């Protein structure tokens, strides 16, 4: 499936953008040219040779703070997505097979989770358990897990009633075999789509929380926190909020683009799409040596 996604231009762009962001998250702190916490007398400075993106109200280097802050945002959003994946997918698939009671309980639980506003809940959890992005993101992950539960349950239901699964059962296949061999392949693409979407949503949540100053102690840099503090000095540096805002927007956009690309290449429609592209490519190859300008 990875190869199929990369066959699409939009898939390539999305993967490239996300790879850059991921590299920033891993190597950001080392790449930072200066100490992100070091203050200086040069407050609210314009972009210069030593400070590429200028300095903030305490004279700290903005570029260094952005690079250092990327880790919190990326890790936070991944944490949301992976928590939601584990908490949602497993009961989603099992709800089809484990009998009525399990199905009923998990369905009611997801209904309850959907009813809770996750941003408010995350704020409340931070207030209760103390200031930490990890706890807040874990809770958010659980709260957005109904998406995964529903997506995986719907896909599994569609496969579970199909004749080829019955054929496998008639041959003596166990439940585990059926899930591994038939269900998994059909459930994976919609889950991948949901995962890419959720990473984007997680990003927005991390940014929102840090924007509000929740989850991270003040001197530590985050994208949301940078955006918030830059907004306070709009009159002095009107262009400053652009960089963190742009970073957030581009990352979320890349996640959604990736989700679309995965959806486009999966399933019957995806196969047809790729086949038609392949056929067209072959035609062009064959037509390649033909003299240019020939009537077609």
């Amino acid at each position, binding site marked *: 499936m990875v190869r199929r996604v990369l066959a699409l231009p939009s898939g390539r762009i999305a993967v490239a953008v996300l790879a850059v962001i991921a590299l920033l998250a891993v190597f950001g702190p080392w790449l930072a040219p200066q100490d992100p916490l070091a203050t200086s007398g040069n407050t609210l400075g314009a972009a210069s040779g030593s400070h590429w993106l200028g300095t903030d109200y305490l004279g700290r280097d903005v570029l260094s703070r952005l690079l250092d802050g990327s880790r919190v945002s990326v890790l936070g959003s991944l944490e949301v997505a992976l928590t939601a994946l584990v908490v949602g997918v497993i009961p989603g698939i099992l709800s089809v097979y484990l009998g009525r009671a399990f199905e009923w309980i998990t369905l009611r639980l997801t209904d309850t989770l959907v009813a809770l506003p996750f941003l408010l809940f995350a704020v409340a959890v931070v207030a209760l358990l103390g200031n930490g992005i990890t706890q807040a993101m874990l809770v958010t992950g659980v709260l957005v897990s109904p998406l995964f539960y529903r997506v995986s349950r719907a896909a599994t239901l569609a496969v579970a009633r*199909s*004749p*080829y699964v*019955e*054929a*496998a*059962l*008639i*041959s*003596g*296949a*166990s439940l585990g*075999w059926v899930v591994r*061999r*038939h269900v998994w*392949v*059909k459930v994976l693409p919609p889950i991948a789509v949901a995962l890419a979407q959720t990473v984007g949503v997680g990003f927005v949540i991390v940014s929102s929380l840090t924007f509000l100053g929740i989850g991270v102690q003040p001197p530590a840099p985050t994208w949301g926190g940078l955006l918030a503090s830059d907004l306070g000095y709009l009159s002095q540096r009107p262009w400053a909020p652009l960089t963190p805002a742009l970073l957030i927007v581009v990352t979320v956009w890349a996640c959604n683009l990736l989700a679309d690309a995965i959806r486009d290449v999966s399933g*019957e429609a995806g*196969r047809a799409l790729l086949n038609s592209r392949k056929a067209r490519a072959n035609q062009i190859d064959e037509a390649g040596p033909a003299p240019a300008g020939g009537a077609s």
Partner: protein
Amino acid sequence: MSADAIPCTRGGGMSTDAVLTLEGLSVHYGARRRRRRVLHDVNLSIAPGETVGVIGETGSGKSTLARTVLGLVRASGGSIVVDGEEVAGYGPRQWRALRRRGVVQYVFQDPLRSLDPDLTVADSLAEPLLVQGVPRAEAATRVRAFLDRVRLTEDLLDRLPGELSGGQRQRVAVARALVTEPRLVILDEPVSALDSANRVQVLQILKELRDDGVALVFISHDLGSVAGVADRIAVLYRGELVETGAARDVIAAPQHPYTRLLVRSAPTLHSAPADRAERDALRALLHA
């Protein structure tokens, strides 16, 4: 021409070595007040290598009969003996053990939907063997050795079901049911979705199978589509077996009014205008 009196039911005595014996089988759907009777007191025995056609209209319970024998639907009464084992009270584990022996297989009506669209022909065909624990390499050779019997070529093995014609798909579905060398194969309308040439080809394959000693249960709404291959015919009407007998007898001298209507309704090349009046009379009789 035929002078002997034709017994309405025949062949209950061979149950000792039968591959399938149903006695007093009944099935209900739903619970309590919504409980509906789907099958009632069905008695049928199938000898090794015998081909039996089960004929019935939509809703007559013919698919339920097949699904009960395969353990997909629970019987509410009576006994089902498959290959010498009483299976009516079996739980999931016992069913799985029985199925892994590959004694009974099933061919679905719709060949497109009965093959996983994401598995190649080779993978679909190997599945029943892999489930039994046959090593991958051996399964592949056994699948290859099998292709000839169902008129499939090796170059189809790497294709997906979506890339096959309707006739090829149905032959793959038949092949998948046969790789475990079952003693009994149940086929649900295996040729209804096929055109003439493919229909003849699949029926020919089934005939050869019967000659190899495999017992076949051929389920259809159309007496005509089983007439060419069935030794015996059982007619299911509203959940009950109303007539069982040798194919020739059932078709040439049907006893029950519904069987008579079936014979008169099946499209034949030599139908007479008088059939129309007879059909009207039989319909009136059945609806009375």
